[in-house]
């Protein structure tokens, strides 16, 4: 790998986003508006404090999944990936370029949504604010890595977009958002235990309940980071220099 190529790739992806003003606007506006909606829908004391942070954790996952799966599918179908594979660019350069560019994007998104939630909407976060951003960033990378992996199985953008609900919704249902994980049947609990989004939701729940960094939170962060790394390795395996 080469730092020059990695950073050039990051700049290239950010430039693509910059040219696409509408996507950039949607990336920031949609989670902000949903956060505001959630605040006024859950018009009961404490309820927004419980669910607000979870939404902040789930959002970057979903958004980065879609953006990456469509983005890398375009690279595969437009021939730019094939072209890059004939150059000195390493797979790691491409993956890290994406990770850095979308990491920056996720942090900007989290900063705007977080500021709105913590000030205007009066979100009461017990845990330290930096952990909120750390988990947000890891969730974004998890979404990115899974999106990259999923894009290998999509032939068209229609298919790529539909992988998002396929990957995200079962995880959301099992993550303890609607029914606490402890109240689900044993089989479903097992399923929830192996789904990375369960740990993302749990980490955010820890933040809303405890003012210090708990052991559970540390474990959750490690699990999310590990899953993101694993998904990235799987995604890397789908980038091939030679194809049929």
């Amino acid at each position, binding site marked *: 790998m080469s730092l*020059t*190529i990695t950073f*050039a*790739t990051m*700049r*290239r992806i950010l*430039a*693509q986003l910059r*040219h*696409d003003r509408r996507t950039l606007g949607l990336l920031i506006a949609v989670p902000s508006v949903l956060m505001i909606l959630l605040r006024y829908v859950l018009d009961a004391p404490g309820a927004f404090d419980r669910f607000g942070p979870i939404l902040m954790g789930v959002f970057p996952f979903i958004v980065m999944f879609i953006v990456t799966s469509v983005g890398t599918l375009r690279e595969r179908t*437009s*021939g*730019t990936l*094939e*072209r*890059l*594979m*004939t*150059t*000195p*660019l390493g797979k790691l350069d491409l993956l890290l370029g994406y990770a850095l560019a979308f990491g920056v994007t996720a942090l900007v998104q989290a900063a705007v949504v977080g500021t709105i939630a913590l000030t205007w909407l009066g979100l009461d976060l017990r845990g330290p604010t930096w952990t909120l951003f750390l988990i947000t960033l890891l969730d974004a990378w998890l979404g990115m890595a899974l999106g990259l992996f999923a894009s290998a199985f999509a032939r068209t953008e229609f298919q790529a977009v539909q992988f998002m609900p396929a990957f995200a919704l079962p995880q959301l249902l099992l993550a303890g958002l609607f029914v606490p994980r402890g109240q689900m049947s044993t089989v479903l609990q097992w399923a929830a235990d192996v789904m990375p989004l369960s740990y993302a939701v749990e980490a955010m729940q820890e933040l809303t309940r405890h003012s210090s960094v708990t052991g559970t939170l540390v474990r959750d962060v490690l699990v999310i980071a590990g899953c993101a790394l694993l998904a990235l390795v799987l995604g890397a395996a789908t980038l091939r*220099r*030679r*194809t*049929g």
Partner: protein
Amino acid sequence: MVSYAVEVDGLRVVRGGREVVRDVTFQVPRGSVVGLLGPSGCGKTTLMRAVVGVQIVAGGTVTVLGHPAGSRALRRCVGYATQNPALYADLGVRENLRYFAAVLGAPRTDPDRVIEEVGLGDVRDQTAASLSGGQLHRASLAIALLGAPELLVLDEPTVGLDPVLRAELWELFHELAAREVTLLISSHVMDEAARCERLLLMREGRLLADDTPDALRARTGTEDLEDAFLRVIAGQERVA
């Protein structure tokens, strides 16, 4: 110094259960302009993909500048332009070139140099999506010219260009060849064949002829390369 830029020996490629390149053997001398001709679907693109090392092959060997095709050592010295322009539609022409120049480790002045070489000075700041088909092809070609490639593999680089531009590009190709750059150029336009030093004629995955345009005309007893091609095919069918 290796005398051949490309050596293909007994190459076979299978795609979708069908043999699309069948036992193809040829050499491309360094610093020459070689035309790869044949109808659409005859295996030209697959053969070119094998030369740049992105094609899974079923058998045979492809050696480029003394290394197996696709080797790490070749990734700075082989320029490749696909038939469908491969660039980022949402970026400007110059932005595209700056990115690929950075990836190739080419000098910072290279994007502007290649923009001039392909005559895209007027649209350098336009996004690729806003270019015409011919301009898009030239922008994609420009990427292949970045750095100092020793071999250029160009798949139908002059499609959709007006005759003046086509003549200009062929001038550029010969200038490059004069600087010891080797060019493998596919085309299905026969008047371009006359501008090549050697011709490879392909049909249904097989190499039918590997000769100079003059030798091909003499062998088939025609003045016209199109007729020469037809006679080669007819001769092949009689044998089969």
